[in-house]
C-alpha cells in the first residue's frame, strides 16, 4: 500500500492536540474527534501517528475507529448528505428519499461521488421529527422532503 503523505502542518496541529490531552491514552476518542476535525477523516497513517503519540497499539486505535459510526476512514464529500432513518422519519417515508438520493447521485451509503462533491450517509434522528422525513446537506436541514424534491435540493449544490 502506498504511503499517503499527511500534511506537515496538520500533523503538527494534531500533535498539539495530543499534547493538550497530555498524550493520555484515555483521551483517544477525544483525540480522534479532533483529528477527524482537522483532516476530515481518519486514514490509516493518521491512526498510526495517534497510536504513537498516545503510546497505544495501532490495532487498538483501529479497533476504536471501527467501533464508532461517527469515525470514518474515507474522506467525506464537499457536501456530505445525511438521510435521517430515525423511526419518525422512517414511518414518514425517509427510505424512499434515501433511494432517490442513491439513484440521483449513483452512489451507495458510505460512498463519495467520484468528483468528491457529495457523500452519502444515514443518521438516526436529528431532533427535527416535526419535519419528518428529514435530510441534511452539510449543516443545513431540509424538512418534509419528498422523493420528488431530492433533485432540486441536490441541484442547489451542483454548479
Amino acid at each position: 500500500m502506498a504511503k499517503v503523505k499527511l500534511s506537515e502542518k496538520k500533523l503538527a496541529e494534531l500533535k498539539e492536540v495530543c499534547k493538550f490531552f497530555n498524550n493520555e491514552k484515555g483521551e483517544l476518542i477525544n483525540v480522534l474527534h479532533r483529528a477527524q476535525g482537522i483532516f476530515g477523516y481518519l486514514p490509516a497513517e493518521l491512526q498510526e501517528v495517534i497510536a504513537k503519540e498516545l503510546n497505544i497499539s495501532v490495532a487498538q486505535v483501529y479497533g476504536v475507529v471501527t467501533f464508532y459510526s461517527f469515525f470514518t476512514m474515507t474522506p467525506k464529500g464537499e457536501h456530505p448528505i445525511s438521510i435521517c432513518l430515525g423511526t419518525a422519519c422512517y414511518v414518514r417515508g425517509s427510505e424512499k428519499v434515501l433511494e432517490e438520493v442513491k439513484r440521483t447521485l449513483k452512489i451507495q451509503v458510505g460512498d463519495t461521488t467520484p468528483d468528491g462533491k457529495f457523500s452519502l450517509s444515514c443518521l438516526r434522528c436529528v431532533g427535527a421529527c416535526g419535519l419528518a422525513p428529514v435530510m441534511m446537506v452539510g449543516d443545513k436541514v431540509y424538512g418534509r422532503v419528498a422523493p420528488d424534491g431530492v433533485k432540486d435540493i441536490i441541484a442547489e449544490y451542483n454548479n
Partner: protein
Amino acid sequence: MAQIKYHILVCGGTGCRASQSEDILKNFQELIIDKGLGTEVQVVKTGCFGFCEKGPIVKMMPDNTFYTKVSPADCEEILNEHIIKGRKVTRLLYTDPETKEQVSDSKHMEFYKKQIRIALRNCGFINPENIEEYIGRDGYQALGKVLTELTPDATIDIIKKSGLRGRGGGGFPTGLKWEITRKVKADQKYVICNADEGDPGAFMDRSVLEGDPHSVLEAMAINGYCTGASKGLVYIRAEYPLAVERLKIAMRQAREFGLLGQNIMGTGFNFDVEIRYGAGAFVCGEETALIHSMEGKRGEPTVKPPFPSESGYLGKPSNVNNVETYANIPVIIIKGAEWFSAIGTEKSKGTKVFALAGKINNVGLIEVPMGITLREVIYEIGGGIKNDKKFKAVQTGGPSGGMLTEKHLDTPIDYDNLIAAGSMMGSGGMIVMDEDDCMVSMAKFYLQFTVEESCGKCSPCRIGNKRLFEILEKVTKGQGTLEDLDKLKNLSNVIKDTSLCGLGQTSPNPVLSSLMNFPDEYNEHVVSKKCRAGSCKSLMQYIIDPDNCIGCTLCARNCPVNAISGERKQPHIIDQEKCIKCGACMEKCKFNAIHIN
C-alpha cells in the same frame, strides 16, 4: 436602562432551526433597531417549545401570544402589528382543528392542556445561553439550599422520598443509586450524565440540554455534594452540536458565577464538569459501555456487578443518571418530595418527557404526568392520527420497546404497566403508526437498527439478532413459513434471556410484541403471502383492471422495465415476473385502471 416591555421568544430548538428560526431571530433583531424599539423590546432565543409540528414558534411576552409556522418574512408584520399597533397577527395563530377557533395562548391548546412541565420547565421560557435567566427562575437555589441547609443524607432522603426513577429507560430508583454511590468509600468519585441519546426518533435529552442546560449542571453538582464527588462528566453525542455549544456556554457562565469550580457559594464545596463526546454507538447508552467509551475504549458493556456505583469510570465509584433524571432534581429539592410524589402513579412518580412522532398530527416534545393514558396522549395532546387514517400501533421505548395496540390505549402509562404490556418506558420515544404501516416491516426496521448497533461482544446479540432480522426479511419477502414464526419466538426469548447487556436483553421486544399483538398480520405474510398495509413490496402486485383499461398505452410507455404489454385500445397486462413494483404505471394511469392487490 429603560424598561423592557416586550419579550419575543424565538424557538431555537433543532426542529425550528431547521425551518429558519435563526433567520427569524436575526430579522427581529435588525428590525427592532431599525424601528427604534431597542429599549422596550428584547428578542430571546429559547430552547424547544415542544410543538415542533407547528414550528417555527414565536411567543410574545407578557401576553403569551403563541405564533406558529412563522417565516422570516413575517417578522416585520409581527413587530408592526403586535408591538406597535397592539393587534395580534391572526393568520399566524393556532387554529384548533376541532372547534376551528383561533387560540392565542398556548395554555388553552389541546397540545399543552394535559402536559405538566417539570423537566422541561424552562424550555421555551428562558434564553439557555444566559445564566441570569435561569437564576431568575429559581435556578441554583436548590444547590444553595443543599449546600447550606441540608446534609448529603438528608438530600438523598428527599430524592428517595420523591420516588424519582431513572428516566433513561431502566427505571432504577434514583435516590437509591445515589445512596449506593455515597456509601462506597473512595478517594475519587465521579458524577456522570448520560446524554448519549441514541434511540432513533427521540430527542428529549437533546432538547433539555439545548433549552435548559443549567438545570443539568445544577443537579450534577447536587449529586456531587451527596455522593462525595468533585468531578462531573457529561457524555454527549458529538452529533448534537447545538446542545454541546449551549452546555459549554452554561459551564463557562456557571464558573464565572462561582456555581461551578472551587469553593462553590463560599461553602468549601468543589465541583466541576467536563464534556466527553460519544461517537455514534447506541450501546453506549448502557452505563458500563458508556464508561468504557469515556475511557477511550471500544464501547463494549461488561457484566454487572460490579455496578458503576461501586466501580465505574477509571475504576472509581460513579453515579450515572441521564439528562432528564437530572433535570428533575432541582425542582424536587425546592418544591419537596411530597409535591413531586403527588404526581403520577403508585410506583411511578412525576412526569415523563416523550418525543411524540410518527403518523400523528401534533409531532412534538411533550411532558406528561405518569399515569396518563396512551389515548389521552395520542388523541388529545397528539391531535389524533394524521390524514384521518386508522390508528394501528404505538411504539414506546424505541428499539428496546414493544408495539402497543388499540387494546392498550386506556392503560395508564408507567414503568410497570408498559413492561406488563410487553414494552417499556425506554428513554421516551413514542412513535405512532397507522394502517399503512406493516408490523412485520416495523419489527424488521427495529431489528436492522439493533443489528447495526450491536457491539458484537456476546453471541446471542451478535448472531441472534442478525438471524432474527434475516427471518423477518424472509417473511416480508413472502418466503416465510409457519415454522419461521416459531423460530422467531424461541430465538427472541433466548436472546432476551442470555444477552449480556440491556441492548440484547430488550432487542427482541419489537418482534415479540408484534407477534403477540398482530399474529394475523404475520400469518397473512407467511400463509396467504399478503401484506395488508401494502408496504411489503415483494408481496404487492400491480394489476390492470381490464374493465377500466382503454388501452391508451401510457402505462406501457412509462414502465421502466417493459413489463406491460398489450395491443392499442385493448386492455393491457403486467408481467409480474418482470415488474419491479415501482408504481410508475399507477401514477400515470388516467383511468384508475391500475390497482394494488
